[in-house]
């Protein structure tokens, strides 16, 4: 079975002007990303700010056209943005963002906003649509009396539910969630994560879950991909990646998760998150990598199955091509 969504070799470049009178520099936000999402499954995409995970989300939705590579959805290539087939596809693939207040129109009651995609895509009979919208709100745990409220009259968690109801009203096949819980309080995050899992079971949704939070990713994902500076550096089963990360960056990310009663030392990475406009040679991670070798500075590793367990990892050291450099850096 081919996956529902398949992206191959996505590249997205931006021209960025530095400062008021600087030259424009080419920034490769996404640099050769391939991924797939299957029906009823979730792919978690993890990384820090500027790693290109949000851009990847927009590329797979077809909101932006890639400079290279291709996206296919349900065995058909993604139509060009703005065309009629592309618009028709919008009801099949939806997006949820970090900031629910920004995603909602504050001048409209939420019922109208949930009903809107039904009107736009002409789903169902016009007279049935309010009932369908209320049903969609009920499915995410909002009461019919809350349907008449305006976004500012709802709490943060309720707003994110409303956003989710709107996204799910058209019964899409694919949902891309970009940091959907980051702006919410811990107790509300749990509510939203549970809701996502429930709705996935109900609708057989394929989900691309973009987050910097490894805990949340493990909770909702069936596979996880770790991104660094525009490329996927490791991909595998969540528990495999979290318990035995292969890539040094994934190791650092995992060890940085704060948790009570931790065993073992935290690996503290040196340096700042990288600047995509200032991409290092070779492996993009090598300047911060505790085990980088001369080869790493020279040659970019490719993502391929590791000998032994077949974990997908892009690292010369993890692949056994070169011995790790000895480092004196204490954690």
């Amino acid at each position, binding site marked *: 079975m081919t996956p529902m969504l398949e992206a191959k070799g996505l590249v997205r470049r931006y021209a960025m002007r*530095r*400062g*008021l*009178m*600087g030259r424009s520099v080419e920034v490769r936000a996404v640099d050769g990303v391939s991924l797939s999402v299957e029906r009823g499954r979730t792919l978690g995409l993890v990384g820090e700010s500027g790693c290109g995970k949000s851009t990847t989300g927009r590329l797979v939705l077809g909101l932006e056209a890639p400079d290279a590579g291709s996206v296919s959805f349900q065995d058909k290539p993604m139509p060009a943005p703005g065309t009629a087939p592309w618009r028709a596809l919008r009801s099949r693939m939806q997006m949820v963002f970090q900031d629910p207040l920004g995603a909602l129109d504050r001048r409209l009651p939420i019922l109208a906003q949930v009903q809107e995609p039904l009107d736009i895509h002409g789903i169902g009979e016009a007279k049935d649509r309010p009932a369908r919208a209320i049903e969609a709100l009920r499915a995410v745990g909002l009461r019919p009396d809350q349907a008449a409220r305006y976004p500012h009259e709802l709490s943060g968690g309720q707003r994110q539910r409303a956003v989710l109801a709107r996204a799910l009203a058209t019964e899409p096949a694919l949902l891309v969630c970009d940091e959907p819980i980051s702006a919410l309080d811990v107790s509300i995050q749990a509510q939203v994560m549970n809701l996502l899992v429930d709705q996935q079971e109900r609708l057989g949704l394929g989900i691309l879950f973009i987050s910097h939070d490894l805990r949340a990713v493990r909770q909702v994902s069936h596979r996880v991909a770790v991104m660094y500076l525009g490329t996927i550096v490791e991909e595998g089963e969540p528990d495999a990646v979290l318990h035995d990360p292969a890539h040094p960056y994934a190791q650092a990310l995992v060890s940085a998760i704060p948790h009570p009663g931790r065993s073992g030392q935290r690996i503290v990475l*040196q*340096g*700042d998150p*990288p*600047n995509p406009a*200032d991409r290092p040679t070779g492996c993009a991670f090598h*300047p*911060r990598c505790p085990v980088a070798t001369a080869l790493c500075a020279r040659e970019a590793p490719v993502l391929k199955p590791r000998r032994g367990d077949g974990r997908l990892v892009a690292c010369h050291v993890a692949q056994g091509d070169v011995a790790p450099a000895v480092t004196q850096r204490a954690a």
Partner: protein
Amino acid sequence: MIRFLGSRLLRAAVTIVMVVTFAFVVLRLSGDPAQIIMGADAPPEAVEAFRAAWGLDQPVWIQYFHYFGAILQGDLGRSMRDGRDAIVLVAERIPATLALTLPALAIKVGLGIPAGITAALHRNSFIDRAVMMLAVAGFTVPSFVLGLLLVLVFAVQLGWLPSGGQDSWRHAILPIITLGIGGAAVLARFTRSAMLEVLGQPYIRTASAKGVPWRAVVWGHALPNAAIPTVTIVGFMVGSLIAGAVVVESVFSWPGVGRLLVVAVANRDLAVVQCVLLLVAMTMVTSNLIVDLLYGLLDPRLRNQPRRAAGMA
């Protein structure tokens, strides 16, 4: 920096050309200067002769090119009224205008900025409300109404000050106050909101949290930041030093550039009108340029490109 200046200068030049062109077109469309200057009952031959003498009988676009060519050579034309060089006529009036606008600017800045800061620091207090009420009154009342009011009270009723003319420094007092109050009101409101915005910023809390006394927080941390938006308004006021007194000069019969402009427009004295407009455009553009440069000076974020800290490893 050179590129920055270059692009700004180019933009300034384009602005000036557009102003001059616009003035040229509007003036030609709005009536026949020959007819107006010679009078309605002048003999047709005399009007024709006037047209020929001033080149008004040629197609408009040729007139435009002649006019533009002359400007580029520094020739701004002569007054159709008395034949003197337009630039001389205008230059004669500049000191009189500046005698009003410069002291008025001092009032605007000296009254408006402190009032705005005081209001912001005592937000929602009696002082704040009083300042804001005065400020709203100050800029909603048009300057000719305010001018006439002042004349009524101080010249007609009390007889303390003259109502118009330019014979002594006492004649300048009412027009200066009229000009100053409106601007001070605008500036007070603007400074207050800029200051309130800054006082709400996290770095003000940081300064307090590190033990900086409140006075020093205001002077050392808040004001330099609030100055950035305020500079725009002051720059605009500097830009209108020449042309900002048209109404007030008319109300008080003050023989400045503004009155010259009004008279010249009424007479279709093309060269003089265009000369004044060119001067106005140039002062505006120059002050904008200065504001841009000041921005860079006041706000390091706008200064050349960010030297982002490289990785530490």
